[in-house]
């Protein structure tokens, strides 16, 4: 990937994530803001370090991207943050959620739907490509074990990934998390081919 291609992917990912956060704010009825956004090339073995290492306990909301090309979206939180998000989404006072039952999982799944479809809509608007999100899957385990799901797919064809990583938060409570977009190489190639289509 050359500098122009990298800047295109950075720009389109940034816009996708901004749109996802904007729609999340609307859904929650309160301001959610992006605290940081970064994109980098990482070896697959480095990706668990994003959460503080592969042994760290994490909750993941996992979505696959399919259609003309493939990729992965993973929203990762430490469990306390995931509980905080469930409280926010269910309109409960902070500290209410202590485990992830059906209701809380469903709320987090809805969060994944909003974030995933918002992001992919921006990609579609910029390229004309119809990329489809899968229904979200809620996972809870060691970060390394969660990311094996992504690694098992990507490592079939590549040893590295371009990871778009975002931290965000709501004004009145701690709900920061990482929004990872990990494209397969074919997704990057197809997006670059179609960037003039919009």
């Amino acid at each position, binding site marked *: 990937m050359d500098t122009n291609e990298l800047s295109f992917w950075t720009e389109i990912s940034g816009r996708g994530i901004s749109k996802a956060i904007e729609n999340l704010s609307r859904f929650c009825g309160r301001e959610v803001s992006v605290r940081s956004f970064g994109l980098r090339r990482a070896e697959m073995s480095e990706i*668990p370090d994003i959460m503080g290492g592969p*042994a760290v306990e994490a909750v993941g909301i996992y979505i696959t991207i399919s259609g003309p090309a493939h990729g992965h979206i993973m929203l990762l939180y430490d469990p306390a943050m995931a509980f905080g998000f469930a409280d926010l989404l269910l309109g409960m006072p902070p500290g209410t959620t202590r485990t992830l039952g059906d209701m809380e999982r469903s709320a987090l799944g809805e969060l994944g739907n909003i974030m995933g479809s918002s992001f992919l809509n921006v990609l579609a608007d910029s390229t004309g490509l119809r990329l489809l999100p899968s229904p979200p899957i809620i996972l809870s*385990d060691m970060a390394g*074990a969660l990311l*094996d799901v992504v690694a098992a797919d990507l490592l079939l064809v590549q040893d590295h990934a371009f990871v778009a990583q975002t931290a965000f938060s709501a004004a009145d409570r701690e709900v920061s998390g990482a929004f990872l977009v990990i494209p397969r190489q074919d997704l990057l190639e197809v997006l670059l081919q179609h960037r003039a289509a919009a």
Partner: protein
Amino acid sequence: MKLATTVQAEPILVGLGELRTATTPEGVLISVGLGSCVALCLHDPWKHIAGMAHMVLPVSGEGRRIGLESKFVDRAVPLLLAEMERLGAGRGRMVAKLTGGAQMINGLGAMGQQHIGERNADAARAALLDLGLEVQSEDTGGRSGRTARFYAGTGKLVISLIGGDTYEL
């Protein structure tokens, strides 16, 4: 008089798709956060040589490109055995243990890869059999991630889960 002391060495991290060996009795190999990946542990109890491979995918032929060979079970198992034999381990004394291979998500995995954890464990057993070895003990499958610590001095494999559950093979 010289007192014998056992010094716990810094664990040697075996990352995604890597294989590592430990050649002293104090050596510890560790794979952290195994999900659908499997860790194969080989041990020569006479020489106190231990080896661990942290493998991600069952068969190398399924990919368009290979890249890091040791991420594939069918490549990593013979590579690990060869490396241990080069270090002086004897195949006839080798003890094999296997862990990992969980099913982290239901049914079809990412991009339609079915039961990747189970396939990884099956591939590891098959690759060992091809080399004349059998898995002596294993803890595979289930739906939980694992951290595996393998001790070169004793051949003990200690497995930890989220929440603090720990047991040994």
